[in-house]
């Protein structure tokens, strides 16, 4: 149906390094990243803090430029934001002077849709994330979880093929975040989006993804690619109770925290009852 296939080829990124006395050096953050993203695939990018995962996502969003290689839609190198991509931010970034509905309208307005179409689509996506009761509330009147649902609705409303999510649940409390996992999976399934999802939360990555990309090293590259075998929809059973889940978690913990973190505890012989 569409040709908006996302790929990342030989991507590298350097940042200028400023030292105290103003002498400038350069630090290589990412090097040699290659990734082919499938249609409607949910890919998580995980890595320790400072591993450049957010930088990678920002380059795909067109908010930063790669210094080597790049991200491509089909054969076109990404050099700025585009219609086929929308971003959901960790800091949510709702416009405080706009109510829920008007926030969801933002992207549609910028793309120059007619006023009637803007209103109709915004209303549709406000309902999709279950906020029709709060359509006229202002951001400060909403909980963090509701705010991020607005952020997701805003990104979906422009009908992108690819949803870019930068630790979208990172600022929410654990319960709210887990509740939103199911909601996100169901939204993505309904709208058949491709998702690139940055997180440092291991369970979140396994629970949501079809594939997990692990970034590591300095400069960071892809150190592991994990295919997540669980069938969807995952909210219909408890994925985390499966032994495979624990194995994947141990593998990811090994990457993020070192091998020490995954050594199994010795199970003590049971004391007599």
């Amino acid at each position, binding site marked *: 149906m569409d040709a908006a296939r996302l790929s990342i080829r030989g991507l590298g990124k350097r940042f200028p390094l400023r030292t105290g006395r103003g002498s400038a050096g350069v630090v290589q953050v990412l090097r040699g990243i290659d990734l082919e993203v499938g249609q409607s695939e949910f890919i998580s990018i995980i890595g320790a803090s400072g591993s450049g995962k957010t930088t990678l996502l920002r380059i795909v969003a067109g908010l930063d430029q790669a210094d080597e290689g790049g991200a491509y839609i089909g054969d076109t190198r990404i050099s700025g934001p585009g219609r086929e991509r929308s971003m959901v931010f960790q*800091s949510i970034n709702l416009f405080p002077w706009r109510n829920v509905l008007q926030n969801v309208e933002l992207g549609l307005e910028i*793309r120059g849709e007619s006023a009637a179409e803007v209103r109709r689509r915004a209303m549709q996506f406000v309902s999709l994330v279950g906020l029709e009761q709060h359509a006229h509330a202002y951001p400060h009147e909403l909980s963090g979880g509701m705010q991020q649902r607005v952020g997701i609705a805003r990104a979906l409303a422009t009908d992108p093929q690819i949803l870019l999510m930068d630790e979208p649940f990172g600022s929410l409390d654990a319960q709210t975040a887990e509740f939103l996992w199911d909601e996100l999976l169901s939204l993505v399934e309904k709208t058949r989006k491709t998702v690139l999802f940055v997180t440092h939360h291991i369970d979140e990555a396994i629970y949501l993804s079809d594939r997990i990309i692990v970034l590591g090293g300095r400069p960071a590259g892809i150190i592991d690619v994990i295919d997540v075998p669980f069938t969807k929809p995952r909210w219909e059973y408890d994925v985390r109770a499966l032994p495979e889940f624990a194995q994947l978690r141990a593998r990811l913990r090994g990457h993020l925290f070192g091998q020490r973190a995954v050594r199994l505890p010795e199970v003590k012989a049971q004391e007599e009852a």
Partner: protein
Amino acid sequence: MLTSKWGLRLMSLTVVLAAWQIVGSRINPIFLSTPTKIAEAFVATIASGELPQAVFVSLGVTAAGFFTALIIGIPIGLLMGRFRTFEYLIDPYVNALYVVPRIALIPLIIIWAGLGVAAQIVVVFGTTVFPILLSTYAGVKHVDKRLIETAHSFGAGERQLFFKVIIPASVPFIMSGLRLGIGQAVIGMIVAQMFLGIAGMGFMLTNYGNQFATNYVFVVVLSLAALGIALTELVKFVERRFNHWKSDELRAI
């Protein structure tokens, strides 16, 4: 009853006015006058139409200067805040004019604009434009970069960034600029009419001051206080209408 805030205020006013009446009637009336004499002067200036006429003229000058300052100050502040090149081209003049006491410019204004209403409006403009311009500038500088980036991620160009992010995000700062500006406008109006006026409240002040008609001077001073409060409340009312989306913590700005 006496512990309520209005009870306390009323009590304080009564005591001060009574003391003023007693002390004022025992010394030279030029020095302090008395509340009753001031009330008589108030009734006389209203009956003769002098005070309403002066308030009308003064309001006209204040409004003309204030709106000119708003129309010129807000766009310059927005552009200075957003575009470095424009900022560096303009800021030497803004900073130089800002630190010069506006009264020092009155001789020049007389040379350029004469002694009439136009010159008074120029003076009001001069005192009002800086708080408005500088608050607007500060507002643009304080726009959350993440909101600009969000709009950019949806493909917004410079024009859309300006109208959808920069301007609405600066509104609270612009509004507090207007609130500061209206107070400055009243000061500018009085100074201008004291130096340049042949009508208006500033002229009344100089005129009655020269005649040592202290009770009449007090009539003008008290009317000015009322005018200042009324105008500030008006701007605050407009400000609240623009800030309805704010949470209580944000409103403190």
